[in-house]
């Protein structure tokens, strides 16, 4: 039992849990019932996807995935805000 095996299995387990969380969020996104539930599902989906990328960066041991995670976070935030505003007023830019 070396530290490489522990890290590989443990981080793999964490990644699996995050993917399962993404699947649950996707289920809520597809299922609805109302539009705000779908947006909430999208919000959870990208959040867990971002965390999965961070864990993948840990598995490969490189810091290169940091930018990807940050950009997913930014784009997801913009998307959620735009969709929520659209539901509120029927327009994104006013």
């Amino acid at each position, binding site marked *: *039992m*070396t*530290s*490489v095996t*522990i*890290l*590989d*299995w*443990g*981080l793999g*387990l*964490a*990644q699996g*849990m*995050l993917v*399962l*969380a*993404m699947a*649950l*969020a996707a*289920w*809520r996104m597809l299922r609805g019932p*109302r539009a*705000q*539930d779908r*947006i*909430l*599902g999208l*919000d*959870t989906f990208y*959040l*867990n996807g*971002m*965390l999965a990328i*961070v*864990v993948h*960066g*840990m*598995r*490969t*041991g490189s*810091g290169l995935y*940091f930018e990807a*995670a*940050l950009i997913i*976070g*930014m784009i997801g*935030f913009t998307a*959620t*805000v735009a969709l*929520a*505003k659209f*539901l*509120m007023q029927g327009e994104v830019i006013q």
Partner: protein
Amino acid sequence: MNGAELPIWAACLVVLLTVTGAGFALVGALGLIRLKTFYERVHAPSLGATLGMALILCGSMLLLSLIEDRLVLRDALIGLFFTVTTPVTLLLLARTAAHRDRFDGNPEAPPEI
């Protein structure tokens, strides 16, 4: 995978932090399925966005600091960014839902203030 020179305790600590964080994120997503009304469900994702994210980022910072043999605090920026943005998204969503529910005359709608 280049964690060969890592001591066992460090690997265990990193795995413990990351798996606990992923567990909180998973429970949050599970809450999205199990809770009954929309206003209950909005509480669920913030589980992954606060403690789940904090634990995973701590694990990541610890691992990268040990591998690169210097203090890597870059991931704290992700934490800072999400701490600032999550309230905005959830607040906007909750307000949108309240607005729509009041407009539709839904019995779940929050009271006027």
